[in-house]
C-alpha cells in the first residue's frame, strides 16, 4: 500500500485538464460550473440518484463521474445517500409502474428548492420501452423534470454538461 501512496504523491494526478481530447474543454466547463455554483448554492450541489427502472447502464456512467478522470467532487458536486440531503434528483430509466410510488415519495422527501435531471433516453419518454403497459413513460410522467440529458447511456461528460445547463436554468429562474 505504501508504494501506491508514494506513487500518488510523486506522480501527477490523472485528473484531466481536458479528459476527452477534441471535446469542448471539460475543464472550462468545470470552472464555469464552479462559478455558478458559488453564486447560487455556496460551494456545493448535492445529488441524489434514483433508478426508476433503468437497465443499470446509466448507473455505470454515473459511477464513472467519481473516477479520477472526471473527479466530480472537484466541482463541488457530490452524491448523497438520502433525498433529504439533496438539491438535485438525478433520475434514470423509464418509470416503471412498480417504482412510481417510490419515485414520488423520494421527490416529496427532497427539500425545496430542488431540481430534477432525467438522465438517459429512457428517462425522456420511456425510450425503447415506450408503449409497455409495465411503465408509465419518462420521468416527467411522475415528477416535474427541469432538464434532460440524452444518451444510452449518457457519457460522463454529457452528464457533467447537463448539470451545468441545469445551473444556467436555475440561475435564470431565481
Amino acid at each position, binding site marked *: 500500500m505504501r508504494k501506491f501512496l508514494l506513487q500518488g504523491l510523486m506522480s501527477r494526478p490523472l485528473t484531466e485538464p481536458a479528459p476527452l481530447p477534441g471535446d469542448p474543454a471539460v475543464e472550462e466547463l468545470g470552472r464555469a460550473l464552479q462559478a455558478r455554483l458559488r453564486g447560487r448554492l455556496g460551494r456545493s450541489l448535492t445529488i441524489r440518484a434514483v433508478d426508476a427502472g433503468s437497465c443499470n447502464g446509466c448507473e455505470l456512467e454515473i459511477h464513472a463521474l467519481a473516477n*479520477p478522470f472526471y473527479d466530480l467532487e472537484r466541482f463541488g458536486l457530490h452524491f448523497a*445517500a438520502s433525498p433529504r440531503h439533496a438539491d438535485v434528483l438525478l433520475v434514470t430509466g423509464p418509470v416503471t409502474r412498480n417504482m412510481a410510488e417510490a419515485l414520488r415519495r423520494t421527490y416529496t422527501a427532497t427539500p425545496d428548492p430542488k431540481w430534477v435531471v432525467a438522465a438517459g433516453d429512457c428517462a425522456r419518454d420511456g425510450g425503447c420501452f415506450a408503449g409497455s403497459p409495465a411503465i408509465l413513460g419518462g420521468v416527467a410522467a411522475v415528477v416535474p423534470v427541469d432538464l434532460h440529458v440524452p444518451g444510452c447511456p449518457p457519457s460522463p461528460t454529457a452528464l457533467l454538461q447537463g448539470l451545468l445547463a441545469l445551473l444556467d436554468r436555475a440561475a435564470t429562474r431565481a
Partner: protein
Amino acid sequence: MDLTPLANADLRSTPLRRDHCTLSDWSTACAALEAGKLTLLALWGEAAAVRMALLDEGAGRIGVLTLPAETAFPSVGRHHPPAQRLERAVADLWGLAPAGAPDARPWLGHTAPYPFLPVEGDSLHQVPVGPVHAGIIEPGHFRFTAQGETVVRLEERLGYVHKGIEALMTGAGLARGAELAGRTSGDSCVAYQWAFAQAAEAALACPAPPRAQHIRAVLAELERLANHLGDIGAICNDAAFAMMLAQCSILRERLLRATDLAFGHRMGKDVIAPGGVTRDLTPDGVAALEAALAEVAGRLPRLVALYDGTASLQDRTVGTGRLSPDLARQFGAGGFVGRASGRSFDTRRALPYAPYDALAFAVATRDGGCVNARVWVRFDEVQESLGLLSQLLASLPGGPVRTDLLPARATEGAEGIGLVEGFRGDVFVHLALGPDGRIARCHLRDPSWFQWPLLEAAIEGNIIADFPLCNKSFNCSYSGHDL
C-alpha cells in the same frame, strides 16, 4: 430421462424441435432435478404452455420440455426450490398457476400489498431497506430480520424495475428484439445481444461469419474485464478500502475509452446483431484496445498484491457471506457466485461456442464460498480474459462481419437457443420466430435468477453491516431479473 437430443456441437446452430411433453415427462424431469441429476436452466411461460430448459452437466447436453397448459401446471418448485421464483413470474406474466407450489405470492406483479414471510423468535427486529437504496444502485427491497446485529433472515422482494421487456419483444422484428436484448441488463449488453443473436442464428440455421464471432468475443471479454474491475474496486470500497476503487476505476475507464474508440460505444452496445456485427474492427481500433489492455496487464499484479497484502481488508472479506457448494450446485449458480463455491460450470468451456472452442483459457474456481473467494475468482478471470483478448486480437480472421439471415423455411416458424457466458454467469435466450419472421416469443433468463436466492442464504449469521459487502460480491442484476 431422455432429453430432446441436442448435442452441444449443434446447440447454437440448429433450430430447436418443439415437441409437447406429457405430464409424466414433466414429473420425471422434476424428480431428476430434485435428485440433482439435472440442473434447471430456465422455466418460462408462453401462450397455453409452460417450458423448462434443463442441463445435463455430465453429458454437456441441454433439453427443452414443453408442457401444454391452459390455466395451471404441476409445480416444479415444490420439488426443486430454484424453480419457485421462476414459477411465480410465470403466474404473474402468463396467468398459469403452478399447482401445489409452496409459495403462491406474486413476484413481478406489485398490485397488492405483499405479505413477507412471518418470523418468530426472541428479541427479533426488522430492518426494511429499499427500494431506493443509499448508493447508486438499482432498486429492490431487502427485509432483514436481525437478532442484535446478526441477520437471522433476509427476504428479498424484487420486480421494481419490471419493464415488460418480453411483452415488447412479441411481434417485434429481429432488429428491435436485439435493441431490447441489449437493454435488459445494462452491464451485460454484449452478453445479451450475443445470446439473442445466437438464438436467432440457431432458429434460422444461419451462423455468423468467423470474423464476426471473433469480434463478439473481443467485446464479451472487454465487458467481463470492465465489470470485474468495477466489482473488485466496489467490493473493496464497501469495506472502506477506497484506494482499490480508485485504482480499478482508472483501469475500467481506460478500457471503456478504448472500447469507444474501437467500436463507437463505451460499452459496445448495439455492435452485435443477428447475423454478425454492425461494425468491423479496424487496425486503429485494435491498437487502442492493445494499449489499454497492456496497461491493465501491467498494473494487475500490483492490484493483486495490494489486495493480498492488506490484512485489514481481508479481515472483512475472508469467511464473510459464505455460500455452501451444495447450494451453489443445487441452484446451478453461474459466474463468480458458483465458481467461488466450487461449481466450475462455464458455458465457454462446458458447452463451448465459437470462437471459444479454439482458444486456450482456464476456468477459475475457488472453494471458499466467501466474499474473498468471489474477489479471487474475479482477479483470476481478469487474468484469463487478458490472455483470451491477446489470442483473439492476434488471430482475427478475415472475411465479412455480417451475413444476411435467411427467413425461416418452415411455415410454422422456428425456434432457437442462445447461451453465452456473461461476466455474471450464463445468459440464456430462447427465441421463437413466427412464419412471418417476427418474434413470436422471446425469453431472456439472467443468471441472477439463481443467484439472488443464494444471497439470502449467504447472509444468514452475518452482521447487517456486512450486507453491502456480500451484496456487491454477488452483484446480481435487478433489471435482468425483473425484465
